[in-house]
């Protein structure tokens, strides 16, 4: 019985690499996803998937179908879009979601125009997005570096970041760390996303960021516990998704996200903090 869990990984190197890759993305993406969720920026991931197109297009114009060039280009484009959206939302009346929507649409249109000018009809994003089953050494190093940098940066920025989420006005009154913190955080988001797209494809990169975070919300009110839980749920979904893909022949990326989704639905129903079952049948209030 234990064989079913163990053999796929012992027999095949690509499965081991897939597991390492998934653990890396869960480690970096989980905490970042929790903060995104708390700041009501959960749809940033999908917007970013489109916003990186002009960067990838310029990389393609400069270096042809070279994945490093397109990834670096995408990174720049993503950072510019995220930072611009962040600045607009801080200094004008427009909020984060609207400013991001405006900039990513602009970016996407620009990207499509650049690609069409070249005259070729290559679907750049289709080429750029990878699959979890094909992780080579450099990609694994990329993923691990990204999650290491993310964890370290979050450790450094933890207090201003939390305060930004829960009481930004107070933060502004006691410190000037608010804006730089937010911008560095956006940089981390883009880094995790673009690295994720390059290595794993959109679905996995965004899904591993948002679903475990959303699931963890139903188990605790404490941000630290939420971050730890989201990492744990991410790793567990990755493991179960890979095993499902191996034994039940499901495509790998979707299988992982379906597992994370199942974790989310279970949390939604059974979670201690605001889960549906607890809302429907609240326990008795303590009475004197």
């Amino acid at each position, binding site marked *: 019985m234990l064989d079913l869990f163990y053999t796929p990984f012992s027999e095949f190197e690509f499965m081991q690499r897939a597991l390492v890759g998934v653990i890396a993305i869960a480690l970096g993406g989980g905490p970042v996803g929790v903060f995104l969720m708390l700041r009501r920026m959960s749809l940033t991931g999908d917007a970013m998937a489109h916003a990186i197109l002009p960067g990838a297009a310029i990389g393609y114009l400069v270096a042809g179908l070279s994945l490093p060039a397109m990834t670096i280009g995408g990174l720049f484009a993503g950072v510019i879009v995220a930072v611009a959206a962040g600045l607009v939302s801080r200094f004008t009346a427009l909020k984060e979601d609207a400013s991001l929507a405006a900039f990513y649409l602009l970016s996407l249109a620009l990207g499509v125009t650049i690609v069409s000018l070249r005259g070729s009809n290559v679907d750049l994003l289709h*080429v750029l997005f990878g699959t979890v089953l094909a992780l080579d050494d450099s990609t694994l190093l990329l993923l691990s570096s990204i999650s290491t940098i993310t964890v370290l940066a979050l450790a450094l920025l933890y207090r201003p970041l939390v305060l930004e989420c829960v009481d930004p006005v107070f933060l502004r009154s006691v410190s000037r760390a608010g804006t730089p913190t937010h911008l560095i955080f956006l940089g981390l988001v883009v880094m995790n996303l673009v690295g994720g797209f390059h290595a794993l494809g959109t679905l996995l990169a965004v899904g591993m960021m948002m679903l475990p975070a959303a699931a963890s919300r139903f188990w605790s009110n404490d941000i630290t516990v939420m971050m730890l839980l989201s990492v744990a749920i991410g790793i567990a979904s990755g493991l179960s998704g890979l095993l499902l893909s191996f034994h039940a022949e499901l495509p790998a990326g979707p299988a992982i996200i379906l597992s994370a989704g199942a974790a989310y639905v279970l949390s939604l129903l059974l979670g201690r903090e605001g889960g549906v079952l607890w809302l429907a049948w609240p326990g008795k209030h303590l009475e004197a």
Partner: protein
Amino acid sequence: MPTRRAAFSLLAGCLALAASSLPAAAQNAQKLKVVATFSILGDMVRNVGGERVEVTTLVGPNGDAHVYSPTPADGRRLTEAGIVFTNGLKFEGWIDRLVKSSGTRAAKIEAAKGVKTLEGEAGGHDHGHGGSDPHAWQSIGNAKIYVANIRDALIAADEAGKATYEANAAAYLGRLDAVEAEIRGLVAGIPADRRRIITSHDAFRYFEEAYGIDFVAPQGVSTESEASAKDVARIIQQIRREKIAAVFVENVSDARLMERIAQETGARIGAKVYSDALSEPGGPAGTYIDMMRHNIRAFSAALSS
């Protein structure tokens, strides 16, 4: 007075516009404008039509027609064309809607009509492509059916060129026969127990059916599908068990999965092969005949060594 001047210049402008279209209409009478959906088909149409047709291709060299999304310029090209050549067999999922939305009155010809089709997935699990494998041109016998369909369509649209089209088609069919003989010769030169090839997606099943080399792929019949861990594991086990020497990546696929498989099994990545699109015109597979020849030579070189 302003209104009279405005009316006069408006009238003059309209007349100028109307007159400008006359030379264009005069030119149209010379060459038959046709559109082919992808490069392989475009090359065949060019060979049959010769000087009498002007061919525009929608999905260019190295383009992937499985996941192509058409542009408004493509719609415009359709309206200007007299015939639209498609592969059929649901290769181009986007063409029906494009034809409808462009409102073109061109004749829509399915080049693969009359071809004996193969079912979608050999393993029984259908990745949603629903039905036949569209890569019929990988067998020269089917390519001849394509050429016959193209020739008949061109004759139907342009009676005056009947003799030219028939002559061109006959010459091209002769060259196809020569390539087929070369393919069979090279296949015969490969030892029977080594006739097995791994490619990225299931593009060569018609080639397999016609010439007897076994093809295995992790991705299904369309590049839109995603491989499962079991598919990849199966292929790795097969490569290890049968000691397959080389794996191949097509020009329209992502090489990374093949590279991973090659690294894990010790197989080599062979030369790039061309399955769904030609290479750029000066390249190793700039025409359909060059493509078939390049592919079989790549397969044979890797398997015979």
